[in-house]
């Protein structure tokens, strides 16, 4: 049976199956949820542009920029869908080194202001600010998936875990040097989720987790003051309401103010720090209320469901691990971003996928989802 179906697939390896048949496997739900979430993101960008400051919509405003990035994201989504994801597996190592190169470039020529005063997070490309650490998240998913897919036979070995940590280390350190604690945490969470779902040894994972917990006191002493303060304010934001606790208090005040129905788009009044990215959930909760918030959360759940389904249906480990990595990455970012706004997790600079303003994030997500769709299209569908 596989012999009969095998030959045409091999021949048209670079493209999906001929004609409309190929698109039977296209997951329209996945794309729809992503587009709906992006629509919410555009709404937030619009609100942040005209809401508080009443500035005119110019070419530089977050809203116009978001639309431009949205268009680019759609093109990227289409291109990656058409592109055969299996090529990525063989391109994994070149991608990995390109990624490291981009991160070093960011450190060398990047600009940006962070809480620590100076930070190198942004690279200007033809008038667009681009954050390569966002792209790094997706590239690293591909690299990890390829790494684990190649080690299927020895997946239970502790060397699998050690190996993937060695792969993780260079980009992780480069991201931390920016400094970008948020992205570094996302990378760790993605690795942890991938190891767990790929079937790595629970014993060695447990050992590693214990070791990490034991190292926390040491890491704590090495953290920058602002990072420590952010973590501590989770437990008592009112300890320093004008300083580190300020963001947390303001964010919860904004969420409070939203009520059930919200104040309506652009009517948010609570002043929020970095309202376009890290604390966009505060704006959303205030302006769209509980109803809007729950709708967005449900959209995220549905999106995750479609990604996990794509992963579950995959017929080869690379595709399955791509889906698992994407699911873990998006899930972690959603939980941490929303959680920090509503005071459940410490404040870390992690954007909310699709909603936060940021071209790199949106384009990277589109590339990731496109790759998953590509995997969907090229799945050998059992004909029952």
């Amino acid at each position, binding site marked *: *049976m*596989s012999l009969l179906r095998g030959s045409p697939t091999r021949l048209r390896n670079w493209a999906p199956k001929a004609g409309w048949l190929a698109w039977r496997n296209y997951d329209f739900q996945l794309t729809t949820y992503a587009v709906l979430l992006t629509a919410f993101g555009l709404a937030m960008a619009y609100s942040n542009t005209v809401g508080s400051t009443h500035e005119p919509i110019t070419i530089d405003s977050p809203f116009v920029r978001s639309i431009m990035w949205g268009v680019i994201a759609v093109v990227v989504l289409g291109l990656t869908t058409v592109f055969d994801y299996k090529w990525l597996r063989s391109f994994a190592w070149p991608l990995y080194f390109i990624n490291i190169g981009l991160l070093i470039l960011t450190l060398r020529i990047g600009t940006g202001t962070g809480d620590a*005063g100076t930070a190198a997070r942004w690279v200007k490309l033809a008038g667009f600010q681009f954050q390569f650490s966002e792209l790094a998240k997706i590239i690293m998913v591909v690299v990890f998936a390829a790494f684990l897919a190649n080690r*299927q036979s020895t*997946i239970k070995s502790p060397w699998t875990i050690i190996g993937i940590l060695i792969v993780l280390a260079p980009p992780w350190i480069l991201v931390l040097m920016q400094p970008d604690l948020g992205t570094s945490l996302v990378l760790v969470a993605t690795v942890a*989720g991938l190891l*767990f*779902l*790929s*079937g790595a040894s629970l014993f060695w994972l447990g050992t590693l987790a214990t070791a990490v917990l034991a190292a926390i006191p040491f890491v704590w002493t090495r953290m920058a003051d602002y990072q420590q303060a952010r973590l501590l304010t989770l437990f008592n934001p009112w300890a320093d*309401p*004008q*300083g580190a606790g*300020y963001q947390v*208090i*303001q964010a*919860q*005040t*904004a*969420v*409070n*103010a*939203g*009520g*059930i129905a919200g104040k309506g788009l652009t009517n948010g*009044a*609570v*002043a*929020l*720090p*970095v309202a376009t990215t890290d604390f966009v959930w505060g704006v959303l*909760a205030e302006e769209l*209320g*509980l109803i809007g*918030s*729950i709708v967005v*959360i449900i959209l*995220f*759940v549905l999106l*995750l469901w479609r990604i*996990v389904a794509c992963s*579950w249906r*995959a*017929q*080869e*480990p690379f595709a*399955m691990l791509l889906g*698992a990595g994407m699911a*873990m990455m998006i*899930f972690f970012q959603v*939980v941490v971003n*929303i*959680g920090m706004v*509503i*005071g*459940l997790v410490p404040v870390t600079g992690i954007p909310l996928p699709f909603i936060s303003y940021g071209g790199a994030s949106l384009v990277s997500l589109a590339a990731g989802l496109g790759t998953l769709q590509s995997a969907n299209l090229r799945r*050998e569908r*059992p*004909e*029952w």
Partner: protein
Amino acid sequence: MRPAMPSMSGDLKNVYRFSMFVLAVAVTVTTLGARMFWLQVVQGQQAYRGGANTQLTGIQPVPAARGLIYDANGAPLVQNVEDYSVTVTPIDLPPSMEELVAQRLGSILDVDPVLIETLIDSSTGSLYEPVKIADGIPGQVAGFIEENSDALPGVKIAAAQKREYLTKGLFSDVIGYEGRITKAQYDKFKALGYSDEDIVGQAGLENYYEQDLRGTYGYQTVALDAAGKPIPGLVTKGADPVSGNSLTLNIDSHEQQLATQALAWGIQAAKVKKGVIIVENPQNGKILAMVSLPSYDNQLFADGISATNFQTLLNSPDQPLVNKAVGAQYAPGSTFKLVTGTAGLQDGSINDSSTLVSQPFIQVGEFRYWEWNRKGWGPLNIYQGLAHSSDTFFYQLSQAVGLKDLNYWADQYGFGKPTGIDLPETATGIVPTNAWKQATQNEPMYEGEIMQAGIGQGYDANTPLQLLDAYCAMANGGNLWQPQIVKSITDGATGAVTDVQPVLMNKLPASAQTLQTMRVATRAVVTSRHTYGLVDLPIKVAGKTGTAEFGVPDKRGRLPYHEWFVGYTPANPYVDDFTQPDSQLAVLAFLYGANTWGNVSTEIVKLYMMLHYKLIKRQLYAFSRRTPGYIPTWVYRTTNFYGNANRD
């Protein structure tokens, strides 16, 4: 039917682990949803019923207008004016623009751009905290910067009140100056609502009456933006500030001017650096003039004194920043004989007709204690002893009285303790007791030192004001009044005027007879021509001279000396009657480190009296040899130390 999953190992897609992941998503998402429900529905509604403000707000103090200061005639000595300062907020200044902005600001303010950049870069505070670049800039320049704020990102103009002193340094030592609150002051005033950036009085009346002058600050509530900065316009009024209380002084600007003129003449004539003149009403302790030279211009402080200027003033050996009337102590010399004489009369060692024999010197062990003219006058009574300022007379008297009694009367006259004047009093003098000598030098007072204490030499030290107070107490019949600069305080809110009442610090336990004897004896100092031409004035002055050697001898073994004179007039200055304790005017003059033939301090007091009683016109050149009280030039010629003019 077909076989499941042909190309995957069963291990890879572990159904339990996928289920765990799905479960984790379900649990966390439910938690998020529940928390949103809690915040937005349960807590949110409560917050709104409670009327909670959605905006984080901050409370800003609204400074009150600082109280003003008027002279005795109601003429203002100080006013509050608008002062503009330039600040740069680092967060609003892009690093790429910093150099450009520094250059532009530098050319506007005429400051080195490198200095501006250094100021911005070396700021240790938050990036949101404005860094002060310059203050006291003219309103015109401030307006220019505001108009061009587009070209100067991060640069702001702050307007504040500042003091403008209207008398060009005439009252610097009395009024003092303001400055940034010190750590000690902040700790002390924190409970009263002071902030650690407040400007508070640092010297003089500005310091002593700080809380009166400050008034009550109001406050306003301001909305804060995401960065914690106040949003302009979103201001809610809290309490209005209440203006500070205003002070009216006992000092008349004209009298202060005359006193300054007299002292400045004396300092210039005697070729010295430091001097003090104080005028007081003995009947109630009101200070009518107080000048300490060299002084400083307190407007420098109001305008924001530069660090180098401040260091120059602070380190100058002439102590321009010290009000030497209350902030420094000197040996009183023969003026202290008032205390020794009172002690002798009170404990019966002498009476007003008994005599002690003045001699060339008194021998104590191997030491000889010389009469100041090295001759002596033979037997002297108290009037003659004080008139000649006979050292041997008072050596014998202090031997008879003893250290304990001498110190008792010094204490009764107010030596060695604060006078209670309404100025920061940083010196209180020394009355050398056995206990004091033991504590500081670990030995008792020797016989010779007790004798020297009786003539105001050795360890004796007092502030000029303490000495004047003691003479006032003698002149008014034994009442040691608290010296007072301020006559009345006008409430800043109601305008109600509260007069400052005289405060009796001590009632001398001396008999009226004793004090009358001392008054007549001080008049004898003048009438005996010990003070030369002072007696020729149509007004009747009594007083006592004093010189006190101190410091290091020069090459020929000669010591510089302080020159003192305390003089006072009776209620009717044209009637020669000092039996009544009715004096209305007492004047003290002091010169530091003089080296003159005569006692120039006497001439300073004389000159002040002549100006005060309008015996001469204001200009010194109106003086001629025929004028009564003409000051002969030999008085202030530098001494050759061989002659013996009556300066002691």
